[in-house]
């Protein structure tokens, strides 16, 4: 299978020489096309930093990150923005929807900044709204929607541009369990039916159990990696909990 994402020996340091913090310490990983990968770790483990450097919001101190064969650590300025809007789709914990725009306009914005035509935009919105079951909220404003609806709208915005890689940062973090389940089922659908590649950061074992593979990070290093294989979601969830226990208390504290 083709590698969509290849992270090679990256390091990310914060602070000055006297008080150096290694947020990521010589970390490597690969994600293949059509994979649904979850990254878990306690707070301060470096998982958000990892997502930030992959999404080019932050820069690595050393190492290389390849997305679809392009070394994104070498991109600068507007190349970065171009890469971000054409190759990546983002889903954030706090949705990051624009409160002045309706749901459909929020979704459309991702396409309009790529200079898509109005007809194309409307057709795509219709399709994605069907897939994510948000047809009824398209003309609503974010403040009129529930958290789950907001996150599905944000997901629609992330996938509408057909990105190579969808990055999700604690997508269920602000959702109740029912909404979280609905969202994750949509992710599953996107992954299975549309073969979207998803990289998701979470500290929630239940959320992670929807993935094909879970990568655990501790102190900026790869701690363990488990594959779902043919396990049922329930079995996979138990495996994840085992590793979480192994990782130490603070991750389960966060549950």
């Amino acid at each position, binding site marked *: 299978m083709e590698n969509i994402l290849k992270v090679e020996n990256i390091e990310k340091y914060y602070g000055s020489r006297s008080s150096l913090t290694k947020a990521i310490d010589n970390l490597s990983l690969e994600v293949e096309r059509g994979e649904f990968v979850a990254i878990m770790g306690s707070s301060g483990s470096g998982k958000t930093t990892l997502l930030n450097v992959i999404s080019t919001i932050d820069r690595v101190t050393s190492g290389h990150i390849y997305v679809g064969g392009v070394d994104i650590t070498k991109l600068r300025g507007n190349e970065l*923005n171009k890469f971000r*809007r*054409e190759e990546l789709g983002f889903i954030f914990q706090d949705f*990051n929807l624009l409160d002045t725009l309706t749901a459909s306009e929020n979704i459309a914005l991702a396409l309009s*900044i790529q200079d*898509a035509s109005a007809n194309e935009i409307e057709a795509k919105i219709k399709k994605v709204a069907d897939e994510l079951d948000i047809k009824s909220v398209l003309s609503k404003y974010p403040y009129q929607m529930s958290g789950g609806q907001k996150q599905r709208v944000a997901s629609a915005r992330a996938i509408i541009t057909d990105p190579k890689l969808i990055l999700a940062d604690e997508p269920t973090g602000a959702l109740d369990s029912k909404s979280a389940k609905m969202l994750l089922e949509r992710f599953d659908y996107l992954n299975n039916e549309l073969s979207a590649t998803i990289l998701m950061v979470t500290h929630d074992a239940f959320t992670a159990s929807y993935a094909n593979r879970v990568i655990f990070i501790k102190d900026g290093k790869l701690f363990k990696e488990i594959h779902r294989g043919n396990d049922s979601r329930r079995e996979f969830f138990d495996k994840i909990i085992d590793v979480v226990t192994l990782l130490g208390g603070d991750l389960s504290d966060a549950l």
Partner: protein
Amino acid sequence: MLYKLSLKNIKKSIKDYAIYFFTLILGISIFYVFNALDTQTAMIDVASSTRELIKLMMNTLSAVSVFVSFILGFLIIYASRFLMKRRNKEFGIYLTLGMSKRKISMILFFETLIIGVLSLVVGLSVGVVLSQLMSVIVVNMFEADLTKFTFVFSSSAFIKTIIYFSIMYIFVMIFNTISVSKCKLIDLLHSNKKSEELKIKNPFVCIVVFIIASLVLGRAYYLVTDGFLELKDAKDIFAPIVMGCVSTFFIFWSLSGLILKIFKSMKSFYYKELNSFILRQFSSKINTTVFSTTIICLMLFVTICLLSSCLTMKNSMNEGIKRFAPADIQLTNKRNMDFPHQRDLNMTYGYNQEQINNSHIDVIAKLKEFDFDLIKYLKNYIEVNIYSTPDLTMNHTLGSRLDEVRTSFPFLRYDTMEMIVKVSDYNKIAKFYGIKSYSLKDDEYIVLADFKSMVNIRNIALKNHETINLFGNILKPKYDECQNGFIEMSSQSINSGIIVVPDNVIDEDYLTYDMLIGNYKTSDKKQIQIIENSLNELINNPIKEKYLLPDATTKLSIKESTNSLTVMVTFIGLYLGVIFLISSAAILGLKELSESSDNKKRFIVLRKIGADEKLINKALFRQIGIFFMLPLLLAIIHSIFGIRFAVKILEVFGTDELLPSIIMTSIFLVIIYGGYFLITYYCSKNIIKENR
């Protein structure tokens, strides 16, 4: 401790304060400069009549200053409210930490104090420097000579500025204290989480309101321009003003609902780049800013009209003097006051018998009685006679059209006697002035007039070929409209009508004035001044008990009085115009900046979904641009009609030079308004920049 906190706050939020501080400095320095004008004018050498006008100007300026201080006061309170809002969360944290509201008020008090003192120090220094520049302009405007450059400092203006602005700052402090004592902790902490409720207006209501408002505005426009003649009373002007203000408000109100609808239907535009975002930003804010947009629009309108009309006045008056005061001196002498028709008409009222008896003497002889030989000073001169008779008034010249005109203009005096002049006399004057001369057949007459509204009235009769009966001769008009020409010197076209008739129809018994028009031998201003001073002394002499002395109109006196008048009007116009302009621009700028913290979050989202910097900057530029342009656009449309109205009102002053003053106004507008726009743009760009 509190003091330190306030100082740190100011340092921290210097970016937000920059435009506020800048506006304060501008306001203070302009306030100082205009109030310090008397010190500047004191050092230049001007005639005493001008001195009087300067005094009047200073009194007017200080009255205007009170008005200006109200505007600036409101601006400052408005601005500090914005800056307070931005810091709600900070105050919320102080309160949760147990700080008392009194202490928060103290922090704000110190902040206002520091800003106040700083702005006064900087503003006054800038003002003192600017006022040196102003003295050059003042000297130029009074057409005086700048003999030596002196550094001028007006302590009275200095103290006045400090007092006025201290009062404003005290009001701000009171205001801040009240708003701190009224606020609730919950609102402070959650103030920026509350997303503004987007009220969707019914588009049909919007369209109806828009159409009605446009119609009302159109009616107001009509009333002040073509319908000008329908305005009978000075009070009537309030109707179009109120109509204009109200319809301006409703146009913005309905536009806020409509613009989005319109552009949304233009899909390929709406979905291009960040257009949907910009339009949403715009419509989400205009809902809450309709009122301030209206105020700003009206202020800009007043500014444009003020600046362009006062600049026009200055230009046209200088032109006017050149055209309408071609000779150096003109003496008008009342004659034949004992003739029965004058006595019957009560024209002798207020004069004693001796004066009446002596009114047979002509002007030169009269001056000789006092050993004042004016002729010896003159290079050349002419003498002409003016006639009038109760049998030739407006009632007669308008003829059969009288009733028609009377219904439109009920306030005109129709029984005033017309000025009659022989064609040979008029041609003498015309040759002397270097203007067009006329010829007449024995049964013809000409009406000369250049005062526009009178020309219009007289043309009604002339079009109808109304004949007149003068001393038994029936005369018909040679032309079917008024011709250009004048006899009395002035600074503008104010000749409301002279009847030129053939020489042989005149009855010498009806001689009312004789006139002497001449040019001095000397062209030296000082010597002319000496001649005119002694002439004035004579005319104002008590000896005139015996003789009725002639009225003197000289080029120099016309020049001085108009000059001082234009300078006064120009200064007041500039003062108010600039203050209005900076106030409205500052309100817009502050509003945009205070909202850019909300916007910051939105722009970060845009960046995250991959909008590049160029696109984001373009969006920001357009967003701020729309907010600056919208009130300006309507203000410009208002001004097109407003200036036309001003032209009508100022008709007396002549309006030939409208274009250069409109260009000047545009330059002012572009520099100040455009400057504020750019500052706002760059400051906002700085605020929304991601801090890495």
